[in-house]
Each structure stands twice: as C-alpha cells, then as structure tokens.
C-alpha cells in the first residue's frame, strides 16, 4: 500500500533495551508467555488491515489478570508502550503493533467463567471468541446478541475495543448495549471493576467510555455480558430489486412504517455476484440490489411482519421475493452474507469502509461512492447493514500495485468524508484505528478532539496504551 499513514517513529532508547525488556518480562512471567523470535512475532505484525505492518518489540500471552497487571506495571515503570490485542481481526489497523511496543495478546484467556441464567448474563475472560459465548448457552435457549461476521475468530475484548456490531444489531444493539461490566487493568497495573450484574452502575459511566476506546484506556481481562432468550423462530427473506434506489427506499419505508426487523442487509450487484460465486446461496443474479430482511418471533408474528414488508417492497419495484422453506435454506442465505468479506478477499485485495449515514442519505451516498470510485478507476462492492445506515463499500484493488493502492486509499478517504458531510460519521463499528485517524479532524473540531484526548489522558497520562491510534499524531497535547 502507499503507506500514506504515518506510524509513530519508534523510540531508539526502547529499541536498544529490547533484550533487557525481554529478559525482564520472562523473569516474572511463566515460561512460554513471552514470545520474541522473529518467526513467532511475524503473525502479529498486522491485523485485518493488512496494508500496514510493523513488527512488535515482543509479544506476551498472559493467562491471568495478575499477569496482565504485572506486565502493565513493568511497562509503566519503564515507559514502554503497550498494544492490547485480541484475535487481530480489526479492519482499521487498531491492533497493528509498533516496533517499540509490547503486544499483550489475550487469546489464552479464553474461559467462560460463569453462566448465570437467573440474571441472564455470562462472565467471560476477554480472549473468549464472540461465537463461543452463544455456543455455550445455545442449548439452554439463550444467545449473545452482537454478531460480527468475524465472530468465529474475534474476541470479546476486541469487540469491546471496537464496540463491534453485526447484522442483528438493528434490534439488539451493539456491544455497548449488551455489556454489563468489565474487569480491567489500568496503565499502571491497577485492577478495577466497572459495572457488574446490576443494570445500572453508580457514578460516571466509565464502562460506556471504555467500550469503543480501542485499547487506549486499559486492558480488559474479563467481561460480563447480557444473554438474551432466543426467539421462537427466525426467518430471513431475500428481496431482489431492479435498482439500488428501490432497495434503499424500501429500507427507509420499512423503518418509517414502524417495522423493525432484526436485520436488514444490503448487497449491490458486484457483491451479489462475489458472494453467490463463493457460497452458492441461491441469490438472484438478475437484479441490481438485494436485501436480506430477517424477522423473528412466532409463526403468526413473522407472517404478519413479512406481509407488511412485502407490501412495501412491492411499492419499490421488487423483482424477486424469496422466502426460505427450511433452516438449511436460511443458513445458506446468511452464509452468503457473512462470507462477503472473505469471498471478496479471494478475488481481489480490498479495503472496507465503515461510514454510517442517516437513512435518508443511503441513495445519495451510494451514488456518490460509485462516482468517487469510478473517478479513481477502481471497482467497488457494497454489502452493509442498511437498517442502521452502516455502509461497507469494499474498494477492490491490487495490493502489489503501489499506484492502485494509493488510489484506493484516497478514494476511501473521499467516501468517508462524503459520509460525514451527509450527516454521518467515519466509522460505525470497525473503529478509527490508524486507518481513519487522520480524518478525525474532518468530523471533529479541535476543542472536540482536545476534550477526548484530555479524557484519554485521565486514564493513561503518559500515552503508553496503543498510542499510534485514533488521534492524529500532530496536535496532541
């Protein structure tokens, strides 16, 4: 990639002490916790934002909160930066290391500590995968609601870092709405607990600000999350439209009619083709845009809701309506959608944008996106959470062609600015990371950013935690 985004220059003093730091860490951590050979460090050099890579100073794989606390205490004492990491699936470069930083990867803290049905919550370690929680409680009729497409791999700690969402968040909300409490280690090794099994906590909503803070406020080691009883039934329906405008207008009208399905997912023609070729999900190929609308509840309820939605779709020139007849068919429909990024990755390199816009702006922004991408001579596939206006244009390019990579990055930046100008924001669920860091000034004024950075400094006065991310490097106080 063009490498237009600057990372902080590593601190030579820390680099020169590398051997000592490794020895010290190995000294107080159990054997096998510290990883330092080039071969072992390699898998950590990037995350889902593969255009950028940096080798870490050293990687630690702690198993307990106490070990995390010991690492933090040491790093605070010697002023060594720390990059918290889950599964490394971030699409914005949030988990990309830096040469002078210790990576603290939580993947070995992957136990479910307690499932409490009377209080409908589960207490888990931060490295548990998102899907593992739902799987653990599924047989008893419960699930954990936020469902990022990466849920097989990504960790709850990373979900908290990015306030992750998913297709079903239209009804159930994103991570912040489903998080009851955390245990977390502060920059100096202090361990605190925020929230718990009660719905409201006392004092300032520190949990609210930790969620989505991209590893800058502390390292989460445990989380208490809400469990929800599974609905009686679920049914996804496919709607194929003649035009993207028709599909967008249908989304707006469904919401305006007071019908809130569990999910409304949008795919344009390129996305349909890519996903169908990969998943054989039975998507119609003779339409310009597709909506997957999922409703849930009892049969009566789903019938009533679907009837109303189909009526609305008819008014917008729907060409195909495909109700599925079996659980297998339903699973296939979702398989197509959930593998969208992976399937795209098989045909080209891509960067995935994540701007969110007010619903009334969907059509405008889709058109604007197409124009921008065409101007840069690139292709785009759109597959996104339409019900909440969270767009995901995938800009296709070739990572080995520096000029194309530069164009992709510039086109992405223009698209995000378009989203902000349309009354939206830079990122709905993937986070700022390094990718959108330098665009923050487009969304926020200087006092806005200064205030956020001041609050950040209340948690991490020396800026040791994930310091290259989120806030533009220049103008930091």
């Amino acid at each position, binding site marked *: 990639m063009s490498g237009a985004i600057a990372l902080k220059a590593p601190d030579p003093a820390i680099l020169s002490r590398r051997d000592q730091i490794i020895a010290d860490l190995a000294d107080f951590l159990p054997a096998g916790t510290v990883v330092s050979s080039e071969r072992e460090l390699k898998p950590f050099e990037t995350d889902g934002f593969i255009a950028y890579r940096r080798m870490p100073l050293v990687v630690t794989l702690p198993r307990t909160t106490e070990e995390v606390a010991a690492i933090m205490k040491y790093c605070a004492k010697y002023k060594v930066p720390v990059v918290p990491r889950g599964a490394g699936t971030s699409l914005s470069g949030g988990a990309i290391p830096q040469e002078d930083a210790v990576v603290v990867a939580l993947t070995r803290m992957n136990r479910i500590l307690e499932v409490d049905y*009377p209080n409908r919550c589960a207490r888990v370690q931060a490295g548990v995968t998102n899907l593992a929680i739902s799987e653990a409680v599924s047989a008893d009729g419960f699930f954990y609601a936020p469902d990022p497409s990466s849920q097989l791999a990504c960790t709850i700690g990373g979900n908290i870092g990015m306030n992750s969402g998913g297709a079903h968040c239209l009804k159930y909300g994103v991570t912040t709405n489903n998080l009851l409490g955390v245990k977390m280690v502060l920059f100096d090794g202090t361990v605190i607990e925020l929230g718990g099994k009660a719905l409201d906590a006392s004092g300032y909503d520190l949990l609210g*600000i930790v969620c989505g803070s991209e590893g800058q406020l502390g390292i989460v080691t445990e989380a208490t999350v809400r469990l929800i009883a599974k609905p009686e039934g679920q049914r996804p329906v496919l709607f194929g439209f003649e035009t993207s405008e028709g599909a967008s207008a249908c989304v707006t009208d469904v919401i305006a009619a007071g019908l809130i399905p569990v999910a409304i997912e949008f795919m344009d023609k390129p996305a349909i083709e890519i996903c169908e070729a990969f998943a054989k999900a039975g998507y119609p190929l003779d339409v310009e845009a597709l909506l997957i609308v999922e409703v849930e509840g009892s049969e009566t309820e789903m019938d009533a809701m679907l009837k109303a939605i189909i009526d609305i779709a008819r008014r917008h020139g729907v060409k195909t309506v495909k109700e599925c007849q079996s659980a297998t068919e339903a699973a296939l429909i979702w398989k197509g959608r959930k593998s969208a990024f992976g399937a795209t990755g098989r045909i080209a390199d891509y960067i995935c944008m994540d701007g969110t816009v007010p*619903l009334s702006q969907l059509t405008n922004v889709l058109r604007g996106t197409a124009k921008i991408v065409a101007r840069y001579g690139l292709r785009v596939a759109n597959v996104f959470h339409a019900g909440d206006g969270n767009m995901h244009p995938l800009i296709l390019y070739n990572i080995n062609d520096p000029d194309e990579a530069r164009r992709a990055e510039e086109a992405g930046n223009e698209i995000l600015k378009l989203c902000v100008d349309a009354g939206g924001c830079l990122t709905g669920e993937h986070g700022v990371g390094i990718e959108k860091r330098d665009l923050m000034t487009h969304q926020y004024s200087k006092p806005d950013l200064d205030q956020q950075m001041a609050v950040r400094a209340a948690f991490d006065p020396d800026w040791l935690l994930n310091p290259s991310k989120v806030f533009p490097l220049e103008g930091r106080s």
Partner: protein
Amino acid sequence: MADIYEPQTEADAAAMITEAAREGRALAIFGGNTRAGFGQKVEGAAFTAKRLRGITAYNPSEMTLTALAGTPVAEIEAELADNGQMMAFEPADHRMMMGTEGVPTIGGLFATNTSGPRRFVSGAARDSLLGIRFVNGMGEVIKSGGRVMKNVTGLDLVKLLAGSYGTLGFLTEVTFKVLPVPRTEATVVVTGLNDAEAAIAMSAALATSCEVSGAAHLPESVRWLFGKNGLPDGPATLLRIEGVEASVADRVNRLQPFLQRYGAVSQIDQGDSQQIWREIRDVTPFSEDGSCKPLWRISCAPSAGHQLLAALRLETGVNAFFDWQGGLVWMQMEGDGEAEMIRAYLKRLGGGHATLIRARDSVRAAIAAFEPQEKGVAALSAAVKAKLDPKGIFNPGRMG
C-alpha cells in the same frame, strides 16, 4: 452578578461559563428542577437550560430527534406521539415521588440517565442517546457523537455525560433514537406469590421466547397503594407483552399456561395495563405525602433484590416493590439514616448500588446520595472530572 443565569443560546451559556470559570464561581445546573430534593444541597449560582428550548430536527423516518436541552419532556413526547413514536426507555415523571413541581426537561432526563420498566429490553436513556453538544467547565463548546445509530468515531463522551448529573458539562443539545409505539400491550398477572417465588417466576418468564418487556412484582404490602387497574387481590407479579395485536395475543397465549405452575394466572389489557406500568414507572405508591420518608432506589442483580428486602424486613420498617425482574427495588423506609445497613446488605448480596432519592434535608446532609465507589474507580472518576471541569465549578458536591 445575576441571581439566576438563564442563557438564551449556546454561545451565551459558553460566555457565562467562561466567566464563571475565570472567577472560580460555582454553578448549580438545572433544567426544570424537578429533582430539587435530591442529594446534597448544591452551593452555587443557579444556572438553567430552560430557555434553550425547541426541537431542532425530527425526521420520523430516521427515528432520531434533536432538541435543545431545556425543551420540556412533555413537548417532545407530544410531538413523538403525533408520529406514533416514543422514547423506548420510558422516561418517568417523578414529580409526585419527589414532591416537586416544575417542568422536566430533556437535558435533565439525559443528565440523570433515567429509564423506566422497559430498561432491561430497550436499555437506559444512555443507550438511546446518540449525540450531544455541551459546554465544558472551561467554557468550550464540545460536540460528541452524531445523529446516526452506530458510531465508534473516537471516545464515547456521550455515555460519559449521560448520567453525570450536570457535574461534567452543561448540555445544550441532545440527539436521541426513538422507536415506534407498540400497537398494543397486555399484562399477564400471577397472583399470590411471595417475593422469592416471584423472582423465580419472572426469571423463568424472561427465559422464554415471549419477549417480555416489563417484569415487576408488587408485594401484598404495596398492592393497595396502586390503583385498582383490574388486578386481582393479593401480591401481583406482572409480565408485560407489547407488539402488534396478533403477536401479543400469541405470546400471551403461550405465557399464560407456562406461568400456571407458579400461581393463579390472569390477564389485564391495554388501558389497565398502561395505567399500572405508568404507576410503576413513576413510583406513585411512594409519592411524597408530606412525611418525607426516605426513599431508596436499589439497582442490583435481579435475583438479589428479594433477598435484600427479606434481610432488611427483619431489622427495620420498609415497604418496597420490584421492577426490572427484581433488579430495581424502590424502598420506602420508616426510619431515617439506614444507609449503612442497606449498603452493607447489598454488598453481601453481590453488590449493586443504593441511591437515596428523597429524604428530609437533615438526613440528606448526612448521607452520600450515591453509592460510594471503590478506591481505584473513585480516583479515575475524579481524574475524568478534572479533565472536563478542572475548576470544579459544575454542581460541586452533587456526585460526592
């Protein structure tokens, strides 16, 4: 110096706060002042948002509304109702409970992060709040969040300001999510359960796929303080179902037989159902009647609520009822100054927080209204406060 500051615009507010900060003058922030009887008395020049009034943007098809902070809640609710929408977190009207008058404002609502019976499905006020504008303690105008449903662009100051009781910033404008009003509702009632049995029944009901949107238990001792509302006699355990007609009927028909194993089951419909949930929401049984008996609001794990009440009943005079499946307990005490006992039991039962909502002035002066925090969290909260209001001019003493 004015006796009372009533900025007409955000710029006014910023100028007044800049000056107050320069002079180190404390400000007592309020909206409609319906919470005047809460917590420690705040010393400072009165500073109100009530002239910052009006809905600035509302597009029903986008399900968001933006209003200036001093806009009366009632004005917003009326506008929403005209469009078949609502604030899903069910804001309460606590004027009867607090024995105050005045006009509750939308800024005050979010500054206190209030929420009613639907809390455990739809979240609290903070979960609906999408964007804010506020003036910090240095007089700077800050915006955070926006008007879209999903947003992880930077630190979520929106959540931080929600529920900060005017101690971190003076809100000038709020943008929040709204939802369609359910077409209909019904409440399934189980009668005759004691508090522990009710906790089990509520937890079982919430583990079904019936999508219960209200779960409350009214023990015998408070039953008579509620209106008649079609409820049978005896302690009542209430489970609300909302949605379109066919769906409500369907779910009620599934829930009723399921609950028969716990006690006698009946049903109340639309009007009565709405009435009883309004009374629960507004805490009308414990309306201020001149005696100013201490009123506590306990937030705890749902299964701990009834245990707390059982423990307290052995030691003192207390009347109470449960909302949020038992996770919210409203307790009216006979005696004063029982804070330590309440908080000690709560701690033993796994924690939570006890807030003194109402009490005589002398009692309020002696008791921390909010649950005292553990050391590390308290230090962090103080550090955060210092970053937003370094001179400590906003509501000194309010959050202890």
